[in-house]
């Protein structure tokens, strides 16, 4: 009997542990995923509720109304057409065409699905129409409209600008856009062929091109620093045109030959041969490890928004594929917002902030429901590495390919990218600029993509400078 009692105790302890684990799992999974599930467009509750509930209001950080419902239950969007279009995918629409939009992803909040018992009772007693919660976003409507209007005309792409200290997204613009007003009645036809509904900042999975050299350099600075071998920063590199890796060649953009140079210069002129060699010396394992620390291959489950995954293959064959990966041309996919977050982490002493789109949620009568606070995603780079990287990125803007991003009176740091999207140059390259302002009063990080825009230095960098300037003017010190 005594032995049996011991066994019984063990079994019951196991079951208790299983119960606690299950409870923990439920709490965790509902906390992290619950909003996503509720916002799914297969949720019939939302549609039946839209008819009976006054949907809450969406406004920008300054209180500019972006969406509201009138007394008859019709949904209206921002008065200014430019604002409406610039924020179309960010705000979303009543038909959930932009699946990542606030109107869809936060429909549960806007419809007051989980409103407090006190509010429900009050509204029940007063006989008022049930009113959902109001959401104030972190974006600045004017800044978004400005960026949208200054985007190279006729081009597609994305710009996102965030505060790297707090993670607040200040601007998120995706081109082409659409007018959500036309979808408000649930019958009118849309004015876009479909790709306008995509929020390219969150859902666009692009080849990063040379903008990825930030990651390669971060990995080199972390792993090839001193020890028995000379540190990577004390080496000189030689670029004599295309260099063979295994069975193929890596060449620099436009067939340039950079000659002998330091690491600093190689980064500034974006020498492919040098970075292919660095990737080769690092090895796939270390490069992937740095990228994964920076958030690659993480199935981001942020509370405020849906951000698609940035991916790097976990096993990269040595030689040519690894070489091209180090240059940003391998089987890599990144989202613009994630690139802005990486730039922000470099600026913020290696700490990446969780991106935030919701500033606060208030009940219909103004009772605060949620006031968001910054939450770090993690220390993704060592402090020294982040500081060194910042200096490299500053030099790339001061004397390198990113010179058109420079802004008088401010220290702009950044990296351009010119991503090949076809093997035979039949399609023009995607232009990238990823960078930040090194300024404690204006801690802004940016990522700009202009699809088929040509080189990053010419097409993307000038827009970044303009956006920074406007943001400084609008958001002040």
């Amino acid at each position, binding site marked *: 009997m005594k032995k049996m009692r011991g066994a019984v105790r063990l079994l*019951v302890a196991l079951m208790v542990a299983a119960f606690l684990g299950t409870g923990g799992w439920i709490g965790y999974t*509902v906390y992290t995923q619950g909003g996503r599930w509720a*916002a799914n467009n297969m949720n019939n509750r939302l549609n039946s509720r839209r008819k009976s509930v006054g949907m809450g209001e969406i406004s920008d950080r300054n209180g500019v109304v972006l969406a509201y419902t009138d007394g008859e239950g019709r949904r209206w969007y921002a008065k200014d057409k430019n604002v409406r279009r610039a924020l179309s995918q960010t705000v979303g629409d009543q038909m959930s065409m932009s699946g990542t939009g606030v109107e869809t992803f936060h429909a549960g909040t806007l419809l007051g699905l*989980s409103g407090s018992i006190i509010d429900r009772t009050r509204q029940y007693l007063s006989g008022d129409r049930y009113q959902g919660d109001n959401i104030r976003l972190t974006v600045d409507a004017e800044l978004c409209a400005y960026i949208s209007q200054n985007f190279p005309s006729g081009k597609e792409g994305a710009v996102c600008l965030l505060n790297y200290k707090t993670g607040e997204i200040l601007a998120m613009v995706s081109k082409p856009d659409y007018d959500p007003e036309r979808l408000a009645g649930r019958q009118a036809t849309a004015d876009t062929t479909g790709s306008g509904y995509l929020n390219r900042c969150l859902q666009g999975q692009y080849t990063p091109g040379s903008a990825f050299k930030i990651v390669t350099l971060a990995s080199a600075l972390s792993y090839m620093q001193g020890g028995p071998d000379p540190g990577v920063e004390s080496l000189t590199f030689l670029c004599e045109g295309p260099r063979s890796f295994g069975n193929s060649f890596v060449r620099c953009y436009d067939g340039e030959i950079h000659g002998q140079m330091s690491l600093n210069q190689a980064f500034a002129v974006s020498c492919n041969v040098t970075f292919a060699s660095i990737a080769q010396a690092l090895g796939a394992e270390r490069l992937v490890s740095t990228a994964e620390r920076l958030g690659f291959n993480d199935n981001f489950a942020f509370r405020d928004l849906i951000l698609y995954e940035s991916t790097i293959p976990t096993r990269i064959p040595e030689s040519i594929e690894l070489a091209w990966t180090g240059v940003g041309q391998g089987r890599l996919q990144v989202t613009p917002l994630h690139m802005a977050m990486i730039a922000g982490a470099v600026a913020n002493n290696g700490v990446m902030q969780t991106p935030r789109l919701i500033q606060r949620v208030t009940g219909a009568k103004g009772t605060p429901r949620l006031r968001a606070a910054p939450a770090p995603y993690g220390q993704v780079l060592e402090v020294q590495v982040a500081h060194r990287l910042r200096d490299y990125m500053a030099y790339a803007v001061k004397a390198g390919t990113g010179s058109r991003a420079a802004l008088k009176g401010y220290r702009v740091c950044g990296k351009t990218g010119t991503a090949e999207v076809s093997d035979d140059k039949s399609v023009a390259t995607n232009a990238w600029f990823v960078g930040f302002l090194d300024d404690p009063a204006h801690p802004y990080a940016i990522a700009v993509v202009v699809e088929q825009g040509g080189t990053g230095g010419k097409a993307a960098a000038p827009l970044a400078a303009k956006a920074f300037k406007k943001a400084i003017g609008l958001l002040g010190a």
Partner: protein
Amino acid sequence: MARSLSHHAMRRALYRSNTKVLMTGVMIFQALGMLLLALKTSPLDTQALGMAILMPLVTWLSLALYGRLFRIDRALMLLFLFLCSIGLVTLQDIARSPETPFLQALYTLLGLGAMGMGILLMRVLRRWDRYLVPLMLLSLAFLALPLAMGSWKYGAKNWIEVGGVSIQPSEFGKPALILCLAAGLSGRPRLTKCLPVLGYAALLCGLLLLARDLGALLLYFLTTCALFYAATSHGLLTLAGLGAGSGCAVAAYHLFPYVAQRVESFQNPWSDPLDSGYQIIQALIAIGSGGLLGLGLGRGFPRNIPLYHSDFIFAAICEEFGVLFALGLLGIYLVILVRGAGIALAARSSFHALTALGVVILIACQTLVIVGGNTRMIPLTGVTLPFISAGGSSVISMMGCAGLLLGVSSINAHDEWEDYRRRVAEEEP
């Protein structure tokens, strides 16, 4: 005078333990929940109103009856009744036709009868080894019935129709399995003596596999392993058994497409949201919509979930009552687990200890399997949430199992009372 007082106190402590607060709470929940649902519809829902009055009454009466007759653990019985009433209130609210909660109420009454029978069996029958072989043969025959005369339903062949009522033999096999294992494994038998009863359990599992009742199969298997370990303390052998079971599961995954499909829709339900992933996605959406505090009783739309009244009732409860309540519900099962384990530990004979343990393990495993399935923690296997899901066979057999556990508690109290009397008699000859 002083002695009779302490006698009295001892009696109370052993037999009755003060459960007034718990009982009042359960009765208030039953009355208020049903009253709320009665007032929801504009001509008063008379069925809900009737239940609002009858449920507390039945609770009070059955507790008084069994408490006085058998000196059972009253708190534990109240918790079982509480779970049943959560099920009834939820069903009254969400079921498409009022017939479902009405029938469920009838089944629960039958279940109370089964509970009484369970207690009585434990109290009256002491020589279980005599009935072991007949019980084994009977339950084997019973479980084989659906294979002979049943029909496929939801991909399993585990139902039989008797006079217009469908019965699920695998549910009624549960108490039989526990009793047979407890009888066959009691008294620390040598390994060879365990073999017949283990073979019997394996046969049962084989029948369930033929019927494709994978949920029940899993529960039978886990209960058998747990009882074998408790009875023999053979850790390595038990682990080997569990390993063999896992091996069979992997083999099933490769052999049977329907098992592979279950796992597939568990791993990535969103890849096929309208077909194989539909159930679990609708469950998750319901849970997410409910949030922390739920949409409120009568305010949710759980009928969007397939099988919302049986396999997915946990998701429906999450939607209506909220995740906090659902966690509290898990807490109730946890209390039942711990208190039931206490009964098993206090039992004087290994047969009784094993019976109590078997019931407790079965209830706990079944809860975890279905709650984990509902919340996408593990692949979904269709079993009921004990005492709560709609289904006559399930609630009657579960109440019967609960009766066995309460019966052991009653025997324990009786034994302790005898001890006390003997001690007192020795002190004052």
